[in-house]
């Protein structure tokens, strides 16, 4: 397959979900319950194409860098705005993640959403969402990415608020949208800084210019600012502290949506963006990114421990894991971070779909028992589901093991890499808080995930409803099992204790930083001196408008095995085993505590909660972040509004009234003048016109012949005068 064919197929991959959206949205009535089938077929075809494209990219063109094609959209003055499509290894893997999960969610939804009154519309929105996400994945410039970024925003808005009759859903989608706006604004400013300075938004051209020493306004601070501002977009989309508040609320959407958007793909967009801008992150920006990630990972993990809503626990664990990925990229463990994105996508989608399966089963059971008051999502109402829903339980357990970082699972490998990265980073730079947050979060993750699993699936059923649940059919369970299977480590590397040997680390290499040495950690700089020319070559090639194979230098380095390119990678390699042992101990401890508390009741969780009541409260109330926002941002805005309204009422209105009074008096004078002088003149002219009109009216007989006769008489008179 030629690169051109690959790009063409990618184009089709992007457009297929859009087609699905268009077809379904315009024939909702006609399709009815067939909408799900149509959507699934479209998504299935997209998935097949994706597998072909990604497989080709990852095998034949594995070392080819980014294959891309760009066309000019329009130009302003001498600056041209371009549209483009680019596929590199990162995008190829991401394509599979997005499309496979989207397909499974389609399949799952045909059962889960069955009987919903807006059933076809749901699939239309899923198509729109997939389209936007694929656009982000395949963008080769910042503008494209931003456009699709916003499209993802709007489609998630539509999906979260799918049941907009519920006030909570309507509030949640507004919250998600507005919170994302804050981040997107930073993203836009970052893009504009780059555009003003470089006149182009192509990834490769921008990086080539930075590598050539041309930094914004000649200052490293501006480069850091650009990186951080663009990363703000990722903070919003990937639910990083302090903009993470929307994600748990977004669980108001249908559960398949939670699986698709809030676990696997949309939130991954932020991490994907961070990975894309990785080369241009300066030392300051990296520290910023790493701390945001670390804080998020730790904070969300503490919150997840005490939540009782099934989906809320999963939501906070998502936030926590996303924090991990961002942390990884921030400390330079690029490959592990992206790997965690992929592995997390599988097991988190599995967890969410399993929760959907449980909730669906609980609903059915409630329906049979004619009980409509209970909360089917509260884990305190579950228990014992292991026996009634064995397949769901199996899938859930595997995914739980994976997220906890138990060996032989994918989660172990990726998380291990991240922790090794943070350790190495801490040793080289002295930021020891980062590994601390990472390990702490890892332990808590293991603990709360097993808390969830044990509460929901083990022990005796706590309610009759839970006792009478039934396993769902294959369209729900099938996706679960497939996703659970993908959470096993062999799919990424043969050696379960060393991800570095696997194909994943071979295909996804951390790109070389392009930031000038004085603004970057020296341990991030390449050890060889070839860096400069390599990037230059890359930049020159990228100007061609044809599909081409740029970035060839990356491939040459890719075969180096463990010949680390930077000091950091070397250090990370050394930190590998200590990190692994530490993480094993911590995860094991977390699991152990989980069992001790909830399965064997060695300790009583309630007593402990009472013992450390303030901490418990803090966690249960999500660190009061929503309340802080309420008090600061929202009430602040409202109070500012009040002040403005007061100002408006008293001062502005006062001035307006005074002006009105003056004008009123003045107008009285004018009206006098108007009445007698102006009107007099007007009346005079009217009278005169009337007089002449009456006179000439005699001539206007309305008879055509008379007019003709007059014309001819006039003609005759003229003739007599002239001759």
């Amino acid at each position, binding site marked *: 397959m030629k690169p051109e064919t690959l790009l063409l197929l990618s184009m089709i991959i992007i457009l297929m979900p859009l087609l699905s959206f268009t077809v379904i949205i315009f024939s909702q009535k006609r399709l009815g319950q067939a909408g799900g089938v149509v959507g699934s077929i479209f998504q299935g075809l997209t998935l097949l194409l994706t597998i072909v494209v990604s497989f080709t990219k990852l095998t034949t063109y594995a070392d080819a860098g980014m294959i891309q094609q760009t066309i000019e959209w329009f130009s302003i003055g001498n600056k041209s705005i371009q549209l483009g499509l680019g596929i590199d290894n990162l995008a190829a893997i991401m394509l599979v993640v997005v499309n496979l999960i989207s397909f499974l969610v389609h399949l799952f939804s045909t059962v889960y959403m069955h009987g919903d009154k807006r059933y076809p519309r749901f699939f239309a929105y899923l198509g729109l969402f997939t389209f936007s996400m694929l656009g982000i994945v395949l963008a080769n410039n910042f503008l494209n990415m931003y456009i699709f970024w916003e499209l993802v925003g709007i489609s998630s808005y539509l999906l979260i608020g799918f049941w907009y009759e519920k006030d909570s859903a309507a509030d949640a989608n507004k919250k998600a949208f507005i919170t994302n706006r804050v981040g997107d604004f930073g993203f836009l400013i970052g893009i504009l800084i780059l555009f003003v300075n470089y006149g182009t938004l192509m990834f490769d051209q921008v990086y080539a210019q930075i590598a050539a020493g041309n930094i914004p306004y000649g200052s490293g601070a501006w480069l850091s600012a650009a990186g951080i501002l663009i990363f703000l977009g990722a903070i919003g989309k990937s639910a990083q502290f302090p903009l993470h508040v929307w994600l748990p609320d977004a669980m108001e959407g249908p559960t398949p949506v939670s699986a698709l958007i809030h676990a696997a793909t949309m939130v991954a967009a932020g991490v994907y963006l961070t990975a894309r801008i990785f080369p241009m992150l300066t030392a300051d920006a990296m520290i910023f990114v790493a701390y945001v990630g670390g804080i998020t990972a730790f904070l969300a993990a503490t919150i997840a421990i005490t939540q009782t809503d099934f989906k809320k626990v999963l939501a906070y664990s998502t936030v926590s894991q996303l924090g991990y990925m961002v942390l990884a990229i921030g400390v330079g463990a690029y490959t592990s971070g992206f790997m965690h994105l992929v592995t997390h996508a599988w097991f988190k989608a599995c967890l969410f779909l399993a929760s959907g399966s449980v909730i669906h089963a609980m609903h059915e059971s409630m329906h049979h028992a004619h009980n409509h008051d209970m909360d089917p999502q509260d884990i305190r109402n579950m228990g014992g589901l292991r026996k009634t829903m064995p397949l769901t339980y199996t899938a859930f357990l595997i995914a739980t093991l994976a997220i906890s970082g138990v060996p032989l699972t994918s989660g172990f490998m990726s998380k291990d890499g991240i922790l090794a990265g943070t350790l190495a980073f801490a040793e080289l730079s002295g930021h020891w808080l980062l590994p601390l947050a990472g390990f702490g979060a890892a332990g808590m993750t293991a603990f709360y995930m097993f808390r969830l699993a044990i509460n929901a699936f083990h022990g005796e059923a706590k309610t009759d409803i839970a006792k009478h649940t039934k396993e769902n059919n294959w369209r729900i369970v099938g996706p679960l099992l497939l996703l659970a299977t993908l959470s096993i480590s062999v799919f990424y590397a043969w050696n379960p204790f060393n991800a570095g040997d696997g194909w994943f680390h071979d295909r996804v290499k951390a790109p070389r930083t392009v930031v000038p040495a004085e603004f970057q950690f020296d341990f991030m700089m390449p050890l060889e001196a070839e860096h400069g020319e390599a990037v230059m070559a890359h930049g020159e090639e990228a100007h061609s408008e044809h599909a081409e194979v740029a970035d060839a230098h990356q491939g040459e380095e890719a075969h180096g095995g463990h010949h680390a390119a930077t000091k950091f990678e070397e250090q990370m390699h050394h930190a590998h085993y200590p990190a692994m042992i530490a993480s094993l101990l911590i995860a094991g401890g977390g699991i152990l505590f989980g069992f001790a508390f909830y399965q064997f009741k060695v300790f009583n969780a309630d007593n402990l909660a009472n013992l450390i009541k303030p901490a418990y409260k803090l966690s249960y109330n999500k660190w009061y972040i929503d309340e802080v926002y309420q008090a600061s941002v929202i009430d602040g805005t409202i109070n500012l509004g009040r002040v403005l309204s007061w100002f408006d009422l008293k001062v502005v209105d006062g001035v307006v009234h005074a002006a009105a009074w003056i004008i009123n008096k003045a107008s009285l004078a004018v009206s006098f003048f108007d009445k007698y002088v102006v009107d007099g003149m007007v009346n005079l002219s009217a009278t005169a016109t009337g007089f002449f009109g009456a006179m000439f009216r005699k001539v206007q007989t309305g008879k055509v*012949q008379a007019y003709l*006769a007059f014309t*001819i*008489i006039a003609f*005759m008179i003229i*003739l007599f005068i002239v001759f």
Partner: protein
Amino acid sequence: MGLFELAFYSFAAIILISALGVVLSRKMMYSAFSLLFTFFGVAGMYVLLNADFIAVTQLMVYVGGILVLIIFGVMLTQKITGVDIKDGSVGKLSFAVGGIMSAFIAVFFTMMYMNVDWFLKDAPITDSTITQIGKSLLTEYLLAFEVAAVLLLVAFIGAALIARRESN
């Protein structure tokens, strides 16, 4: 007197006599039929002037179209065909005024045409003018031609709309 002259005078006579018939006849039907002869005469004049295409057009459009339309108009606005339209009519005054005016115009035009020293340039004699007319219409006068087409369409739609009986 050559054949050309003979033809010319015959046609001129037809035109003028039938035109007189048009304006003087007391029955509208007679006027309409006189008009037919006038049109024929003018078409003959066109032939004498080497304007074959215009002559044919004159016959087709005027005789075949406009005249038929006029006759329809006459018949539709009379309760019984053939009954003299009570034109109430040609009052003495208007008859006198019209007569004087048209006599004046006739005399004036005749005098003018006789006395003006015309710039004369014979048109080249060709077999047929159709080719040239066709070329001109589709090149130099294309826009006017298209506009005329639209005008006709609009006029006919408008006519149909106006003549439609109001449905109460």
